């Protein structure tokens, strides 16, 4: 598994803010880059994968660590 190159800390933010954050940041990074989104709004678990599907980006999965739930996304195009 690719280590995330960057972490977006969206803790405390309500959806759709974490989705907006990843939508803003991902296109600024090279194709293939993995970004980890820290988000404690439970809606992020639904909306980040849904955003990836709608935008043709790759959702790598949810990881839960010390910082709470996080979602890894890889830029595909």
């Amino acid at each position: 598994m690719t280590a995330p190159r960057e972490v977006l800390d969206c803790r405390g933010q309500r959806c759709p803010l974490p989705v907006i954050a990843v939508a803003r940041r991902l296109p600024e990074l090279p194709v293939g880059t993995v970004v980890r989104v820290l988000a404690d709004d439970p809606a992020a678990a639904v909306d980040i994968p849904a955003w990836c599907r709608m935008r043709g980006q790759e959702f790598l999965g949810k990881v839960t660590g010390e910082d709470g739930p996080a979602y890894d996304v890889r830029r595909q195009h």
Partner: protein
Amino acid sequence: MSASPVYLDAATAAPLHPVARQALLAALDDGWADPGKLYAQARRARQLLDAARAATAETLGVRPDELSFTGSGTTAAHAAVLGGLAGRRRVGPILVHSEIEHSAVLHAAERHTAAGGTALGVPVDRLGRLDVAAWETAVHAPGVALAALIAASHEVGTVQPVEEAAVACAAAGVPLYVDAAQAVGRVPVPAGWSVLTASAHKWGGPAGVGLLVVRKGTRWESPWPADERESGRTPGALNLPAVVAAAASLRAAAADAAAEAARLAPLVDRIRARVAAEVPDVEVVGDPGHRLPHLVTFSCLYVDGEALLHALDRRGFAVSSGSSCTSSTLRPSHVLEAMGVLSHGNVRISLHRETTEADVERFLAELPGIVADLRTEAGVVGL
């Protein structure tokens, strides 16, 4: 200048049907006595209750003694779940249910698990349709006391494969409970169930009346403290005028249901097509074909659901939403979650007998601008 308000939330509560209003007013004068007593006023009340039960049972195609009125669709659902489980507790402790049941069913399931029982959710696909193979496996497991399936999703409109689910339940010897709150009075409900519930304010009856049908031969045991009324299924005095109004309006709604469905379904199709075409970055959710004729749902990317509801309200549109920020819980709608579709910026539109083509056109004309303004304010244009 503000245009006249457009109410598009019939799936929460349909405007009172004129027949319901008429029946309610008449029954307020005539049906205030306790139908259980032995005097003239009580006999009149008893007649009204018996007639309401007979008419409702006939519309549903069930026997009058199988039907009890309840204080709401929610209490009917609670009774269906807890009573169905209690009646078969010797068989086992498992409740099988779809993951897209109404919260009334899920909350009853929570009560069951808190008391040591088991609840097993069966998934749906991206269109919100039950995974029938998983359902079949689930109901065949040993120890299943009851299986619960919503007739059609109250949030996204997808009609469920009730007949197939019923066949699986029959093969497994498990009674099927169908929450038909969004179907009764609008679309036919397939046979094969053992317990059914509905709610009068969904078809144009008053709020505060539910239906609980327990088919003959079904093992069902009241979860409430003992009370003889309504065949021992509903404790407490009924709101008889409301029951009478519910029965009268159900008969009227059922008589018009096919024509109304034929009128509203094309409007729903139009909303689905035009929203997808004219609002950028929108996900129209639910099954495009197997769906309720009056309900349509979509989610707008990057838009806050609560802000969208307020903006629509300011323009006179009353709609509902499954977005977490619009409800008392902080969780997104469990239905949208189970489907794996976008949960923020969510709008549910539900039409009724007073909805006109002009209402729908006005909504469709204003929606793209409203969404665009919200996106501009949030600085998310072009993402």
